[in-house]
């Protein structure tokens, strides 16, 4: 106890009551008496853990190692291979024993204390591991695909680019909806502004992708502020409706301003990105020519893939960094309690506008990438359903969670594509079943199931932006959702 108590002690009662309070004070903080658990020696404990590991391996691998099927005349033949199974169990036992005995040593609590430690830190650690694994996969994906799935290489790479575009959009929207807690149903407007900024600059002024990219981001950020002003005073449903209307206004203007945007015909002939002036085409001065490689159309896709990966990672880096800066903390504080923010001298107008501008800027980057990838844009690409999908990704992933957005993008965008190819369902529903016709239905059901099972998104915990001693995750039930939810 610090000096608050010492100064408070002047007000404390005298006599018997004082004594009893002192006694209570002395008792405070003492844990209730519990008999110490019997201490196993390190050897016994290691043996126990190794046995558990071996048992788990035995159960998990029984069908993979103990039995094998071979094609025989008239079907399959089943052959037992118990020795292989036992060998793997032995390997698991020995490996776990050695790990427990030498690496984990004495300090690590064995099975008894495991649950408690796991509860506090498992989520943090698991999130980190998943994040690192996903990042490694993302970096090596083009090589993995060309090595393992050369036949579907182009299709899958294209899908990966699409997923990453949505990851980036999700991360951008996450700033507005997840961190600042301002429900934005018109995010696609900034995507459109970015795409059209790049397309118009490139076709009218003959500028390249890399020059236009920052400009497109700036234009989108500017529109973010323009949208921000009218919605500053709005809360809840009204905020959602105005942002939705803003998204539609942008689309309708693009559709009807024929002289400027080309109207429904869109804009054709948007240049492809170059690598320091090297084009991804056949012939002199191209990428393959310069590096002495054989030309392949896949090179351009790999390049596009790495561009969107870099842009998405930039979005993530800036967002993660901003969360630890005063402005990011102010976004989250705004989501928690706007009035308290103002009582602490925070200009909530500026905080909201920076959130809208930052989110819009990344939407603009993603938009200009979209334009350069497609080579053609029209208002058809920026309908309300896009906003809804991006918002669904953010909500499904868990508001404010960066990892959740990635998982939700893979599930949503990848899932829709996967359902196209589910011919396996024909075995259940009969040969006439066409999975492409039912994919949206299946997808909708899957989303309903996820939201029932995890109402606050796949990754619903919040990790604090500043730590004094120990980083603890914060449960979703304590975190406010902000306006419009």
């Amino acid at each position: 106890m610090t000096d608050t108590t010492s100064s408070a002690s002047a007000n404390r009662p005298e006599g018997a009551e004082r004594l009893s309070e002192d006694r209570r004070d002395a008792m405070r903080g003492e844990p209730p008496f519990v008999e110490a658990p019997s201490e196993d020696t390190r050897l016994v404990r290691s043996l126990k853990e190794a046995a558990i590991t071996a048992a788990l391996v035995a159960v998990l691998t029984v069908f993979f190692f103990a039995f094998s099927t071979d094609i025989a005349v008239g079907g399959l033949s089943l052959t037992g291979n118990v020795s292989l199974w036992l060998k793997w169990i032995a390997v698991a036992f020995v490996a776990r024993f050695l790990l427990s005995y030498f690496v984990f040593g004495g300090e690590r609590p064995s099975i008894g204390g495991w649950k408690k430690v796991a509860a506090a830190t498992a989520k943090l650690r698991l999130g980190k591991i998943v994040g690192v694994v996903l990042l490694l996969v993302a970096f090596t994906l083009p090589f993995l695909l060309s090595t393992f799935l050369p036949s579907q290489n182009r299709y899958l790479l294209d899908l990966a680019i699409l997923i990453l575009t949505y990851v980036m959009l999700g991360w951008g929207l996450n700033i507005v909806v997840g961190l600042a807690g301002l429900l934005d149903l018109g995010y696609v407007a900034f995507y459109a502004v970015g795409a059209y900024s790049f397309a118009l600059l490139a076709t009218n002024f003959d500028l390249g992708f890399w020059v236009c990219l920052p400009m497109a981001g700036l234009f989108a950020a500017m529109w973010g502020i323009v949208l921000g002003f009218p919605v500053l005073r709005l809360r809840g449903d009204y905020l959602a409706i105005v942002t939705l209307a803003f998204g539609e206004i942008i689309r309708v203007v693009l559709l009807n301003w024929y002289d400027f945007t080309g109207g429904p015909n869109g804009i054709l002939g948007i240049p492809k990105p170059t690598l320091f002036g090297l084009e991804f085409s056949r012939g002199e001065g191209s990428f393959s020519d310069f590096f002495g490689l054989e030309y392949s159309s896949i090179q351009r896709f790999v390049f596009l893939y790495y561009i969107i990966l870099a842009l998405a990672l930039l979005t993530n880096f800036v967002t993660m960094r901003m969360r630890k800066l005063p402005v990011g903390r102010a976004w989250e504080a705004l989501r928690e309690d706007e009035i308290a923010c103002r009582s602490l001298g925070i200009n909530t107008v500026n905080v909201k506008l920076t959130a809208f501008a930052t989110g819009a800027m990344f939407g603009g980057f993603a938009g200009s990438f979209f334009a350069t990838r497609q080579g053609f844009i029209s208002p058809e690409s920026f309908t309300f359903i896009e906003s809804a999908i991006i918002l669904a990704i953010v909500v499904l992933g868990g508001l404010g969670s960066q990892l959740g957005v990635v998982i939700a993008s893979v599930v949503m965008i990848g899932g829709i594509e996967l359902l196209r190819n589910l011919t396996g369902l024909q075995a259940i529903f009969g040969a006439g079943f066409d999975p492409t016709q039912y994919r949206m239905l299946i997808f909708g059901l899957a989303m309903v199931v996820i939201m029932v099972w995890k109402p606050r998104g796949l990754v619903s915990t919040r990790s604090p932006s500043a730590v004094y001693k120990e980083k603890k995750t914060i449960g979703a039930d304590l975190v406010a959702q902000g306006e419009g939810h």
Partner: protein
Amino acid sequence: MLKENRNWAADPVLSVEHLTMRFGGLVAVDDLSFDVGRGDITALIGPNGAGKTTVFNCVTGFYKPTEGRIALRRKHGVSPQAIGDLTKSGKQYSEDADKAVFLLERMADFKITEVAGVARTFQNIRLFGGMTVLENLLVAQHNKLMRASGYSIAGLLGLPGYRRAAKAAQDLAVEWLRRVDLIDRADDPAADLPYGDQRRLEIARALCTDPVLLCLDEPAAGLNPRESAELNGLLKSIRNDHGVSVLLIEHDMGVVMEISDHIVVLDYGKKISDGTAAEVRSDPKVIAAYLGVDDEEVEEVERDLEVSAARPSAEGGTR
């Protein structure tokens, strides 16, 4: 504990003059004038619905008063002439080194905290529940850190100037957590704290904005006797060690009588008494307002009260 001289008249930090607040036909505060002395603990008391929280909201900028002037002086010895000049000039505040005066009724709520240095807490606690205790105190240092982070540019690049400022902010937060005895819960979400701890955290958060005047709206509401005794100690140390003037609304007379240097009593939006704890306690109008007796009966009640005059302050410690 009570200061004998009338500090609030000699060296006021805040002067509320002819404050009137109307909500439609309802006059919540009616021509109210009072001063808050520098380095005093001033209590604003009165029956329910007397307009105390409305006065608070006017002082902290959450309401714009219908009429009146609320002047905050940063330093001692600002002449009424200077305030009059500022009022005529139409400016919100003048920030000369010695004669900094802020006309709070003209300023936006966040500016009042940021520029003038008035911090407040709320009757129903308003913490950032999903953020940790430490984060709550860091949010309170937003403006300072914002400047240090070069409006996020230097912060994004991780320049050493910002890192130093961030470290200093964290140190200040930790220091306050030690003071209010919440250091063990620094990494817990604020919504997880017990009620009494939340009250203390809210006070610590307000103090992290580095105010000259701290406005507390019922800080002892819902606290048990031990906690309100600790609160008394905390408020006194804020006044004595940090030189922060405190203006508080409170219903717990134990707390009010024990720590207040100056008490202002409101009833139906009007000031009915103004003075030291002893003066207010023996003021017939106050007794009438609180006990609801006719003026003829006041003297009788007064005589009764004389007998048990010491009771309220003793109550604060023992209950």
